[in-house]
């Protein structure tokens, strides 16, 4: 038996033994997703146990190095772990911006001290991070940010405002872009700093969205003192880190729709419109569209897999995350439009136990942000045109 086969067997056995049965059922509501952090209240004992056991093996981040409490797995081993988890229906033990975004940036740009300080806490879900990038007047033009950090000797004094900060009201720490040189060109006066959201002068205000939920906040900084050791990388060189981190965010958002997939569209449609004598959906036009989106979804899963494999093989274009972000978020929007078409009038009930308080409709409306957050679809296409296709003036 090959090493990988041994690993597969052992992994399956470990998962079967250690993943609590409740954690093998599909996620029914947002509350069942584990985000961790100081303020986290576990939804169930099983959720706590599952996080603890996975964190202990470092399998919340299978491919991070062992020295920072990661899983230390190879790409092939990580794929096997993922496949086996999927086969058993295991939930993700931990969702985290620390894992998806900050971690990769720290691994590349952080000091040894910063890595040892922050990475293990991310792996174990002890600190929940949020991202301080967007500002009210910047929008897609991220680099035109105005939040400033003044050098006050042993600390920076931070003043300004961020917007669209995901879960800022629930996060413990923030990784934040600030302007440290106002005289430099816009991309050259930005620094990347970390600080505790409990710091004096930090306040947050949730933004009510069309879905009726508030995953985003406005975040205000009023004379916040940030120790200078919390600067990541070099002063005024934060834009490079920001871009690197964005590529990870993009790949993450692109793949998001698939993680949250739930029941196949075809099944929801079958409930609404029924099947004909040949076992086909009784709405033939809808059926064709469901099949086409399913084809694109399957292909996109392979594209995500291939992107990871290319990266591992050193053959990836760094801008490829924009392809995944663009395609994945547009696909997720299409998928949810179809889910609404499949659900019909029942899916339009906003407040009723039947519709789980409009779960389908709220999820549908939420997807509209997918092609805006983390850089709009238009920004991604600009990036592909410029950095991959090398088109003039792009």
């Amino acid at each position, binding site marked *: 038996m090959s090493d990988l086969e041994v690993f597969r067997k052992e992994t399956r056995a470990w998962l079967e033994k250690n993943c609590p049965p409740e954690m093998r059922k599909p996620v029914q509501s947002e509350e069942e997703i584990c985000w961790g952090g100081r303020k986290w209240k576990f939804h169930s004992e099983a959720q706590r146990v599952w996080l603890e056991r996975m964190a202990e093996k470092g399998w919340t981040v299978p491919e991070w190095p062992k020295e920072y409490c990661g899983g230390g797995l190879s790409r092939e081993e990580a794929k096997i772990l993922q496949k086996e988890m999927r086969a058993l229906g295991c939930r993700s033990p931990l969702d985290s911006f620390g894992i998806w975004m900050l971690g990769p940036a720290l691994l590349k740009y952080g000091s040894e001290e910063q890595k040892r300080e922050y990475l293990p806490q991310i792996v174990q879900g002890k600190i929940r991070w949020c991202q301080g990038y967007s500002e009210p007047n910047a929008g897609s033009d991220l680099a035109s940010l105005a939040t400033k950090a003044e050098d006050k000797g042993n600390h920076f004094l931070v003043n300004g405002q961020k917007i669209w900060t995901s879960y800022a009201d629930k996060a413990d720490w923030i990784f934040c872009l600030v302007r440290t040189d106002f005289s430099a060109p816009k991309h050259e006066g930005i620094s990347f700093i970390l600080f505790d959201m409990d710091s004096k002068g930090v306040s947050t205000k949730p933004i009510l*969205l069309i879905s009726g939920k508030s995953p985003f906040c406005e975040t205000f900084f009023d004379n916040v003192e940030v120790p200078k050791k919390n600067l990541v990388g070099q002063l005024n060189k934060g834009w490079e880190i920001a871009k690197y981190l964005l590529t990870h965010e993009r790949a993450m958002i692109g793949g998001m729709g698939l993680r949250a997939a739930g029941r196949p569209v075809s099944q929801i449609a079958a409930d609404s419109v029924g099947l004909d004598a040949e076992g086909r959906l009784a709405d033939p036009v809808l059926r064709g569209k469901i099949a086409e989106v399913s084809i694109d979804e399957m292909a996109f899963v392979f594209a995500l897999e291939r992107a990871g494999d290319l990266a591992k093989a050193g053959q990836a274009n760094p801008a490829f995350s924009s392809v995944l972000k663009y395609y994945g978020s547009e696909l997720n929007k299409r998928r949810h439009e179809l889910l609404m078409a499949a*659900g019909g009038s029942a899916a339009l009930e906003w407040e009723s136990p039947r519709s789980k308080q409009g779960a389908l409709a709220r999820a549908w409306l939420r997807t509209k942000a997918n092609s805006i957050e983390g850089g709009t679809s238009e920004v991604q296409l600009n990036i592909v045109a410029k950095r991959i296709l090398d088109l003039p003036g792009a």
Partner: protein
Amino acid sequence: MPLVLNDEQGLLRDSARGFLAKNAPVSHLRKLRDQRDETGFSRALWKQFAEMGFAGILIPEEFGGAGLGYVEAGVVMEEIGRTLTPSPFLSTALLCAGTIARAGSEAQKKEHLGKIAAGERIGAFAIDEHSKHNPAQIALSAKRSGNGFSLNGAKGIVVDGHVADFLIVAARTSGEPGETKGITLFIVDPKTKGIETERTIMVDSHNAARISFDNAQVNADAVLGEVDQGWKIIEGALNVGRAAVASELVGAGEEAFARTANYLKERKQFGKRIGEFQALQHRAAHLYCEIEITRAAVLKALQTLDEHFDHAGSIVSVAKARAGASATLAVQEAMQMHGGFGMTDEFDIGFFMKRVRVGQELFGDSNFHADQLARLNRY
């Protein structure tokens, strides 16, 4: 007939537009939603609608109505689409009054039409039973019982069902679900024993209800038209409803587009107004074309209802299919081009997206009507 509004229709449009902009802009809907208003609309506003002649728009003058046609009804619906104004105009003035005026007995006309025209009576048209529109699938049964009928079954997404003073209910008096023969329409008092109404709060904050019938007794004179012969009346009513909702979708889509075009001229990014970016220009121009072509189809459908009521099926399907699709594109582009702001509840764009989604579903979505057109053309 030229495919443009005539002068009177143009004046009607202007007066409806002015009235709604002043008295019922989007903030009117927002307020009803935020206050969790139990009726979901403003009776005072509906009274004003009646005074302007809108409530009786399809009602002959002899019954106190304005005696106008479907083009005029569509003109008002389009303006309602612009402001997303919730009102019983669709349910009462178009579906119920139109059906009674076309197919009701003299007694039924006398009983209902005057009061509707005066804004004093609200009706609801109860047809769909499943999540997806499919009128031939009616299963709610009406069995002969004593002097009349006994109704059993349930209806979903009955527009204005919980505020209606009367219901027009489509029920099966013979045959099986899927057959178009054997369906009968009844005018029913919703306070009849055995009828239960549950208001359903919808994504678009417009009115709808689920209504169940448990041995609800109605008299023989409740029959609208003839027993077992309801299908043709239903088809007519549905075509009116479809063309009306298509008009509303044109209005809603166009307003969402107009707001977006303005935003493109104002919002700056990367040192430019975003309307200067050619990719957005082309998408906006494409959307404009889609809306204009839909507008022509919808007007044709309305004119055809006025001129050849019984032959409007294909054209109405074209209009409703296009209206659903192009209004959907309009709100999707509006949302994307407004960026994060469009996603906030504070901005109005979300209201348009929600209403268009419901309008797409009402009386058959674009997929349903594509299938319908194929069936009508035998392929």
